[in-house]
Structure formats: structure tokens, C-alpha cells
């Protein structure tokens, strides 16, 4: 498994002087290709900040993030935008879809704004995997929450990105839809060779990942390989208890 993302002394500070809050404190880690990683931690641990920095949505205060050896800080807004468009995919907790576009148009939106034709076979494969073939002409408000998130996942993959960033993707879903989505996500890593970095506070969701990074107060508290749900729960409990 090759190294896709590498963080070196990644630090993020919000505010200045007395009001300064260190959200991330000297994070050193790597994310490998074709792996499903979950980032966990209690509220305020910096997990979302880490995801936003990795995805180039937020700027780091010091240290660097290398995507395939390229430092994100060296890119201007245009290059960063291109990077997000061509190399990253995104699934957010809510508001993933443009309400005026159909499911299909939402899925192909990144290629559309790039002015490229989506790869037909690949898109078809994703749509089949996500089981949304019969929903393509519907608008988001005609879809259930689970269907909306599956469309979002399909969109995230449609342009064959290097990595998909997911921010609490199952946070707004009932348990059934939540499980369905996570199963789909797991299958796209194993079957379609995708890479996913997911932030979650839900141990159940994290248990679908191959690797779980635990954050606390802006630092890595633990790094688990293929943990079970029970292991995660006990880790989370020990982190919150202290």
C-alpha cells in the first residue's frame, strides 16, 4: 500500500494571542491508498479540522500536508480548486446535493464543471453499487435521506478521485440507512479500490473502517488497525473519561 497523504508537524491555531485555540497540534501521520480510515474523537478534538485541512478547505498554521508529495500550502486557490475537483471527492453530513439538479446531474457535477464527459462505464458501475439506478431523474427533495447520501457518495466517486473525504456521512441518517451507506462505502474501497478518509463520532460507523485514528485535544491519542466496535467504544470511553 503506497503513501497517499502525509502530514508533517501539522498544526492549526484559530484566533490570535490570548484567544488563540490550538485545534491541531503537530500531527504526523500518513494515509495510504485503497484504505478506509476513520478519524474519531470527542467534540472539539480537532477531527473535523483535520479533515478540512487534508482536503485543502482550510489553511494550516504550520507544518505541511503532502498529497502524493505535493505540498498543499504551495498551491493557489485555482490549483487547489482543481485538486479538489480532480483528485478529491466529498461527502458531508448534510447538504450534499444541489437542490435544483437531478440525482444524475448531481453525480456528474464535478465532471460538468470541469467540462469533461464522465467515464460512462465507471459511473454506471458506481450507480449500480450504490443502488440508485431508479432514482437518477429525481430531484434531491424527492429522495430519502439515505438515498441522498448515496447519491452524494456516488458523486464523490464519479470523477475517480484519489481520495474521498467524508464528514459524518451517516450523521443524519436512521440506523438502517446508516448501515446501508457504510456497507456501500466499505465496498467501494474493497471492490472499486477507492480510498476514504471519514470523520465520525459514532463507534458503529468507525467499525466499518480498516484503521481508526483517535484524536484528543488536537493530538493523535491512538491509532488502531481493524478494531472491533467494542474496542472502539472502550477507547472512546477511556478518552472521554480522563
Amino acid at each position: 500500500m503506497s503513501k497517499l497523504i502525509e502530514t508533517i508537524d501539522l498544526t492549526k491555531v484559530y484566533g490570535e494571542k490570548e484567544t488563540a485555540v490550538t485545534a491541531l497540534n503537530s500531527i504526523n501521520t500518513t494515509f495510504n491508498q485503497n484504505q478506509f480510515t476513520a478519524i474519531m474523537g470527542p467534540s472539539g478534538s480537532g477531527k473535523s479540522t483535520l479533515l478540512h485541512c487534508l482536503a485543502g478547505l482550510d489553511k494550516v498554521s504550520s507544518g505541511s500536508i503532502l498529497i502524493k508529495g505535493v505540498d498543499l500550502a504551495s498551491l493557489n486557490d485555482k490549483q487547489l480548486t482543481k485538486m479538489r475537483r480532480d483528485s478529491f471527492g466529498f461527502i458531508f453530513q448534510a447538504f450534499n446535493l444541489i437542490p435544483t439538479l437531478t440525482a444524475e446531474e448531481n453525480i456528474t457535477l464535478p465532471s460538468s464543471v470541469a467540462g469533461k464527459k464522465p467515464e460512462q462505464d465507471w459511473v454506471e458501475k458506481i450507480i449500480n453499487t450504490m443502488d440508485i439506478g431508479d432514482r437518477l431523474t429525481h430531484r434531491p427533495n424527492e429522495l430519502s435521506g439515505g438515498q441522498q447520501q448515496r447519491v452524494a457518495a456516488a458523486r464523490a466517486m464519479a470523477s475517480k478521485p484519489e481520495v474521498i473525504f467524508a464528514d459524518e456521512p451517516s450523521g443524519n441518517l436512521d440506523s438502517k440507512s446508516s448501515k446501508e451507506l457504510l456497507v456501500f462505502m466499505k465496498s467501494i474501497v474493497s471492490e472499486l479500490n477507492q480510498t476514504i478518509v471519514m470523520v465520525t463520532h459514532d463507534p458503529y460507523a468507525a467499525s466499518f473502517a480498516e484503521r481508526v485514528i483517535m484524536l484528543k485535544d488536537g493530538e493523535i491519542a491512538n491509532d488502531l488497525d481493524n478494531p472491533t466496535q467494542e474496542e472502539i467504544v472502550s477507547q472512546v470511553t477511556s478518552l472521554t473519561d480522563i
Partner: protein
Amino acid sequence: MYGFTKRPLFLIAWKNLKTYPVRILLTTSSIILGVAVIIASSIFSESNKSAFDNLFSGIYEGIDLVVNPVQEEFAGDFAGSGGQGPVSFDLKKIPDSKIKEIQELPGVKGAWGEVLGFAQYIKVVPRECHTYERQCSETIFISNGFAPTFGGAWDTSPYAKQWELVEGKPPVNNKEVVMDVTTAENNGYSVGDRVTVLAGSTPASFTIVGIAEFANVGSPGGATFALFEFKTAQRLLDSEGGVDLINIVIENNADIETVRGLIEGLGEGNLEVINAQEAAAEQADGIKQGLNFFNTILNVFAGIALFVGAFIIQNTFRILLLQRTKELSLLRALGTSKNQIYRLVLSESIFMSVIGSGIGIGLGIGLAVAVKEGLKYFEFGLPDGPLVLTTEAAITGAIVGISVTILSSLLPARKASQVSPMEAIRESTLTPKRKSLIKRLIFGSAVTTLGFTMLFGVLYDFLDLPSLSGLQQVGFGAGVIFIGISIITPSITKPFVFLFDKIYEIIFGILGKLATENSKRTPRRTASTASALMIGLTLISLANVITTSFKAQAESVVGEVVKADYQVSAAQVFVSPGIPTGLSDELIELEEVTKLSRSRATIVGYEDRPLILGAVDEAIFDLIKTESISGSKEDFVKLNSMGVLKQKAERDNIDIGDEITLTIPEEGVMTFTIAYIFDWTTPPPAEFFLLLENYTFFSNESLDTEIYFNVKEKNQATQDKLDAILSDYPGAKLRDQDGLVEEANNQIQQLLNVIYGFLSISVFVALFGITNTLSLSVYERTREIGLMRAIGTYRKQVRRMIFIESSIISIFGAFLGTSLGIFFAWSLIKALEEDGFSNFTVSISQTFTWIGISIIAGVIAAVLPAIKASRQNILEAISYE
């Protein structure tokens, strides 16, 4: 003890406004503009009124009585109207011997005569020669804008305070002139220079010996003044041995009425004596009425701007409140009543209206200063004076601004008060619930149909409302159609945008698709934003089509009606209402001229009213298109026969064989028999005509009003000969057919430009509306735009999307407005068909130019929202609340 807020809602309203000052500006921008125009127009007319007050009190300063000659009854009407017509007529003068007689009356301190007439400064400037020309100079008529050009006598009386020398000395002989300071400054003349003055019919050269100022205002009403030595003035201004009026200053202890009686006795019924100060007030009032008309026009345009503004305010309020749905529903959840919410919103709108109107008044003052300076720059002669803002004007402006704002916020406030307390708890969906537009469509269609019925009813004679004239019914119908269309627009937004869908998607890809979808998402908002633009464009395209049609009409009329090769008319009707007859004599002698007709006119009495009696040569019937209604021109040329225009004959029921008795000055009563009724399609110089050569009394006239003639061959040699003759008559203007058409078109174009200028204010207001709508729509779609940016949309692409959206709104508005305007223009011309308007021409290029301008303006209006959208912080946009 915790604080207790007595008026919590008032506090919330106030805090809201304090926190978002930009909102106030955005919402009230249109009101600010509308109020500004009202204030500016009021300042403008009030200032001019006070300036004219000053002017007239200046004219009569220090004067107690003014003696005027009693005019013959019918001529008096003309004198009162300014006496400037296409005819020259003799006003009675006071013999100058009377001055001395009056001076010797008891109680009279001083008396001096005034001579006033038209005189024109002429500047002859060399210009580049065309190859065929011998004489290469251009004659420029010096004037201050549209103000008249006067000549007068220099008052030598020690009591005369009107003119004061700024420089030099008074004129003492027939070679000297004193120039008013305004003209001298504007044209760079100084003492010692030589200047040519055209007074009467022949120009002469004078030396400027002095520069004078009139009652501290430079020159009265911006007129140019040439002041001559008394005898010279009398000779030049057609006043030999007489004066136009006598100014009188009485002794301090004399009774004004007694002196007045004495003078009237002296005049034996030929002199009219008026109180100078009363006359000052009267004359100023006359001019003020003229200014009121101008003020009314300005107010109409301000009204249009405010009407457009009302659309925009309502729109903006609705959007602002939509944004605050959560806040308002939270208030509801906390136990605030619907009524309280309603009052909260209204109190905010009151705050805004007060602030907006205040800014509007301030801006109006600035606008008035700008207009005044602008007019000065274009030398549009209006008297100088301070700017006057009356309290009434300020109050009117404020009341109009405040009430329009509050009225436009009533509906949105009502809607806001209906918000459910559940909204605060529920996951927010910013898209409003879509109410069916069907009801709206049905109602709007009914109104529109009603309007069309009224309009076509009168045009095709199946419905004639008894209480309205045909034209009124057309106007009323057009108004109803307009309202109907405004009601329908939200319902037709979708189908209209649908037309764009495919084209925009092909041209702009997914961005085009997103933009069209967004316009369809909020059809009401898109429609009301477009409606604001529609109003301006309707009026612009109406004005455009009407004038284009008039131009085309003028062209065909000139081509059809004037069959002569050339026409000569007076260049400056103020200076000389006609052409010295010497010119027609010279032209008749010229061998190139084959056929020529002179038109002359004189004032006669007809049924105790003044009447212009015209005379023409027989050749006129070949040179101008006339249409015989009854009788014949063979009879017309007989002695004591008279021709009459069709319109006059119809109006007064005159028929062939009728006898018309006229009082002809110095000839007495003469009776003529109507022998010919005819139609004359150009503006006719008179309604009754005689054959010129039959009557000697026309020879007394020194002027022709017009000359038409044909030449053997229209070529350069002929043109050169004509130019050479004409160069001796600077007051005459020679034009061929092309020249006539061009002149008519220029006049129409000037009028159109003024209308465009005013209407662009309403378009400007509409653009504010587009900016408002777009920036709020950008605000609403914060998350959407953030999401698009997150998944890799360039800033440039976000901007482009907003521009595309703006173009849809402006195309929609421009399209509706242009179509309506063209249709209304067609109806108007159709309604005027009986009055001789037949030509309906739409200038495709102008129409598309205006649509193009609207689109470009729409895109400019989108610049700020687009920049704002593209700079949106992605994290803020996508982060979950």
C-alpha cells in the same frame, strides 16, 4: 434586579437595523433615488422661480409706472403671447415726443423711453473650403442656449437702474454697441472688439464700447443683449420716431394714481399706464406657470422611478424576511403574537423609510447642483441664483418616500407574521413553499383580456366607452394590460426561462443549467425583479418606436409633400420672422430658377379676433402638394377670391361661395369670396390665403415667410450661385429636400434623447433591484455555492453562473418591456391614424441596442453579488449549523 425591556420588539427592530446598515441601503436604494429626483426637480423649479422673481423685480427696479401703447384689439392677443409667429406685424409704438410731455407733468420725476426688439449677434468664422466654394466661412448665431436674443436702446436717464456698465462707456453713435456681460464672457468679446449684429433684416458691424450687467444677473433670463444709442436703436429695431414703452419715476410726495390719471389723459386713450411692481409680479407668474409644466414632467419621471422602486422594495423586504424566518419563528415560539411580528416588521420599514428619505433629500440637493452645473455647461440660459429648497418640497419628498416604503412593506410584513413557530425547530429549508400560480395566471389573464378588449375595441370600433375619448380609451386599455401582464409575469417566468434552458445549457454547460434552474426556483422574485426593468423598457421602446415612426413619417411627408427643389425659411424666427423680400426678388431674376412661390402673411382682424392672412404665388400648387377639396385654383387666382384650408373650413363650416369680411390695417374692411378649399400637408403658414400679386397691401410687408422654388438643374454650379446670393442674407436658410428631412429628424432625435435621459433613471433603479435580488439570492444559496466550490468549481465559474442568472432576469424584463412598448406604440399610432399618422416603423437596430444595453447593465448589476459569491468562505458555507 434584572433589566426589563419595555418595548422588546422595538429594540429588536432597532438592533437589526444597526447591525445591518447595508440592508437599509439595499432596500431603500430605489426610494433614495425616487425621492432625490422629486427633491431635485422641486429645487430646480423653485430656484428658477426665485431667480425669475429677482429678474422681474430687477427689470422694474426703481420704476413706478410703465406706459404702454394701447394695441389694436386683435393685435393685443399676439403681443401677449410674445408676438413671435411666422408673420411680422406692426405693433403700435408710442411717439417719442410723448416722453417729453410726460416728463413735464406734475409729480413725474423722470421718464425715459425704451426700445426693444430682436437683434442677433453674428460671428463669422472661417472654415475649410470645399473645392467648389468661393466663400469659406460659417455664420454662427450667438445665443445662450434657448434664450432669446434682444436689441435695445441704452437708457441715458439718471433714474434708469437696469443696466450698469461693468466696463467701457455708453454708446453715443450709430457705430457703437454695448454688450451684456454674459454674452461677452461666453464668447470672449471685450471692449474695442468689432461685432456684427443682425437687427431687422440686414447685418451691420459695430464697435463694442462697453460691457454691461443687468440688475446684477449678467443678462436677463440668459438672453443676449445688444444695446445701441437711442436713435440707432429706433432705426434698427423698427421703431423710427417711437418707443415701445415709457418708464416713469414719480416724485416722493406724488400720488401714484393721480400721476397715472394725468398720463392716461395725455394719451387720449392710446396709452395704457400700469403699476410697475404689479407688472413685475404678473410677468414672473406667467413664467412660473411655464416652469410648473417642466416641474410636472420631472415629477412624472420621479413617479415612474418610485413606482419601479415600490416593486423593488417589496421584493427586497420579502427576501430579507425570508432570511430571518428562523429568527421570527423563534420569537413566535417564545410567545410573540402575529400582530407583534407584523408591527416589528413595520417599525423596521418605518425606520428604513425615514433614513432612506433623508438620504434621498440629501442626494436630491446634490443632483440639483449637478443639473444646474450641467445646464450651465451646455449654456442653457436660465437666470443665475441660489438653490432654493422649500420646506414643502422637503416634506413632500419625505412623505412620498416614507409612504411608498411603508406601503410596499405591508404585504411582506403580513406574510412574515404568518410564519409558524415550528420553523425555528424544524430543519430549515430556505426555498419557500410554492404557492400555486394558477390563480394568479387566471386573474392576470382576465385583467389583460379586459385591457386588450378596451384597446382593440376602440381601434376596431366594436367597443366605445362613452366617457372616454378614443385616445384616452387606448391609454387606459394599455394601462390595464400593463397591470395584467405584471400580475401574470410570475406564472410565465417558468415557460419563458424554459425557452432558454436548452440554449443556455449548450452554451454555458452545467453553469447555464444551474442559472436557469435558479431563475425558475423563485418565479415570483425573478418576475418582480424583471418587472421593474420591464417598466423602464416599455417606456423606452414606446418612445423609441413612436419617434422612429414619426421620423419615417416626416421623411415620407417631406418627400411627398415638398415637390420644390429648394425651400428658404428664416434661420432665426426670433430675430427676424421672415426673409427680406430682396432675396425672392434676386432669386426670381436668376435664370436657373424656373418656378418660384413666395409665402407672405399679415395680421388682419376677423370677427374681432386677430387672424393671420396668408398670400402665395400661383406656383405654390406645383411646388407643394396640395389637395383640392372643393372649388378650383382657377377661381382662387381671381380678384377678391380666397382660399381656405380644409381643417379651418370644417371647423368653422365654411363653404365655397361664403363671404369673409376682414379688417385690413390701413386698407379698411374688405370682403372676399371663398373659391377654393384645399388641404396643405406641410405646416401651413396661414388658414386663409389670397393670391399675392392681386393685393398691394402685401407689398408693404418687408418679409417673406417662406420661399419655394425649382431650378433648371440641381448641380454644384447652381448650388454655388444660390450660396453666393444667400450669403448676403444671413437670416435666411436654404435647404433642399434632404436638408428638410434631416432637420425634422434632428428635432425628433433631440426630443428622444431628453426622454431617454429621464427614462434611464427608472432603468437605473431597476438595476439596483437586480443587484438586490442577486445578492440576496447569493446569500440564500450560501451552502449551495460553498458545496460547489468544495467539489471543485472555480471562483470564475461561480461568478459566471451569477452573471448568467442576471442575464436571464434582464432578458426577461427587456423582452417583456420591449414587446409591450412596441405594442403600445402601435396602438397609439393606430389611434392617431385619423390625425394623419400612418407610419409604424420599428427600428430593429435600436430595439436590439436597448435589449443589449439591458443585458450589459444587468451583468454590471451582477458584478458585486458575483464577487461576493465567488469569495464565499467554503468552510462557513458547508459547515453544519
